[in-house]
């Protein structure tokens, strides 16, 4: 007997759905459940129900609220700079046309590099004493002393410095998405605007950017989610320091869980973090993305 199309589709989706239920939904359920307990870090240790105590602790702790603001600031810096640079490169590749194709491919190379390697590499470039960037700026006469800027040791700028590898790694992605969007802008429209005497800035702000809006929105949401979860690059560069000045939410949760041995509190932080991300992302997705629907 032939099963209905609807049922056939369901069968096709079932294995993947089961996988995500077991390995994502269930651990999430465990996370939320753990957030109501005071848990000993020792395996088999005591586990006492404490109600909302962990949430109260999280919200009243200075470390948690400042990690929240830092995560937000980090995300904004990363996404803004990536967008500006990615759009610049996408426009450059578009205006140069097909002859720049090979360079477009080469430009993608950081996307293949592990974030841990990128973090390490930039740490090496920015580190005090033998970091190359300080030395080059000194030799160029911009800095009086190679160590004048403590990229990774000055608490005031470290949050910006740790963002650099992330920006370096994924500006290519932003460029890729925006480039694809630029190719879909009808040439006639641009031609007509040019004939009407529109100059480059007007073309960009009046025609190109408004038409790219959906693509820009998708790119910003995807990268925003990723930047808000950044972990590897920061861990390898500063481990959250100095003085917690680069400790974002992922790092704080990790340290609360592993170093301070408080899985209950870490779970409460993780739950809040996840809910905040879901809320922000959901609003964005619901208004602009709408996957699965016919275009």
């Amino acid at each position: 007997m032939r099963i209905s199309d609807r049922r056939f589709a369901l069968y096709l989706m079932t294995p993947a759905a089961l996988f995500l239920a077991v390995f994502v939904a269930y651990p999430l359920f465990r996370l939320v459940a753990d957030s109501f307990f005071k848990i000993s870090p020792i395996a088999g240790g005591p586990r006492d129900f404490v109600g909302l105590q962990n949430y109260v602790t999280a919200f009243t702790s200075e470390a948690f609220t400042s990690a929240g603001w830092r995560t937000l600031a980090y995300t904004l810096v990363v996404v803004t700079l990536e967008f500006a640079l990615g759009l610049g490169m996408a426009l450059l590749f578009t205006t140069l046309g097909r002859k720049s194709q090979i360079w477009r491919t080469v430009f993608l190379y950081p996307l293949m590099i592990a974030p841990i390697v990128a973090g390490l590499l930039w740490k090496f470039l920015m580190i005090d004493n033998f970091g190359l960037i300080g030395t080059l700026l000194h030799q160029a006469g911009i800095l009086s002393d190679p160590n004048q800027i403590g990229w990774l040791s000055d608490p005031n700028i470290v949050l910006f410095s740790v963002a650099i590898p992330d920006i370096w790694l994924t500006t290519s992605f932003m460029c890729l998405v925006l480039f694809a969007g630029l190719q879909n802008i009808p040439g006639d429209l641009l031609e007509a605007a040019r004939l009407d005497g529109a100059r480059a800035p007007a073309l960009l702000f009046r025609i190109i950017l408004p038409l790219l809006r959906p693509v820009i929105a998708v790119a910003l949401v995807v990268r925003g989610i990723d930047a808000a979860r950044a972990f590897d690059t920061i861990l390898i560069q500063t481990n959250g320091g100095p003085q917690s000045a680069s400790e974002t939410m992922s790092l704080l949760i990790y340290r609360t869980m592993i170093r301070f041995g408080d899985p209950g509190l870490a779970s409460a932080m993780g739950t809040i973090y996840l809910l905040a991300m879901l809320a922000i992302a959901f609003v964005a997705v619901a208004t602009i993305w709408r996957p699965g629907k016919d275009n």
Partner: protein
Amino acid sequence: MSNASVATKAGPPPSDIPEPQPLRKRRGVNREGLEAGRRSTRTILWILLAAAMVLYGFPFLYLLFTSFKTPIDTIAVPPTILPREWTLENYTNALGRSGVVASFINSIQTAVISTALSLVLAVPAAYGITRYKTPSGRVFIMAALVTRMVPPVAIGIPLASMMASVGLADTPIALSIAHTTISLPLSIWLMSSFFESVPRDLEEAATVDGCSRLGALWRVVIPVVSGGIAVTAIFAFLASWNEFLFALLMTAIRSQTTPVVIANFQTQFGLDWGSMTALAAVYSIPVILLTLLLQRKIVAGMTLGAVKG
């Protein structure tokens, strides 16, 4: 998160791969759409591009140069760009460390298992979603996208204890399952957009010819989207290959992957920058080359599929 660096790099399918064919409309006008017309403008733009490429490419080149320095030269003050003396010492040091070669094997094993698992689960699911457009499919792709927002740090610990309770602690299988939680949503999304581009008549003709729906999928549709499957496989592979956080939380000695070993160089052996740069180079270059090489194949596969379809 950066981990899942590539995982994180979800996004539309790598749209630069199929080269958009510019329509050669206005002959004589030396530009299409946004292409710059004047020669002087183009020269300036090329110079800009060259500058951007040098700046963008330099950090990795510096990593390579450093890996060929002598260990002492690596941390010389002030640093030099090129090695004073070219040597393979950092490479022999790095690869000679215990656990380094084993970690490569672990990385390969984990990434291969995770890629296979992602494809086996994602291909049918994406086909079910795009071809039948049922309400459950719409709910499912939304749910899959929501899982992309879950911070790995939030599920890493529960996942690790689950694996331990079924006796899979510290195994490549456990880690590849964890990596698949990252690559599966991405793979479903990528495959959905590839299936979307296959004309429906194709399977309809096959089913009329007596193929079952499953047979039509396997014998007719899959060959047409093989280019898309290759792209998805690369993304899934890279997601696992470059992942760090799950690997840190879920592996100890036996199944440690190379990113964890690279990070451990910092604490375990003091600050051995030379070995670290060498190992980082050895770990990164194969995937950079592989992806650049395969890119041609993927383009060929796609155009072939399009012509046949």
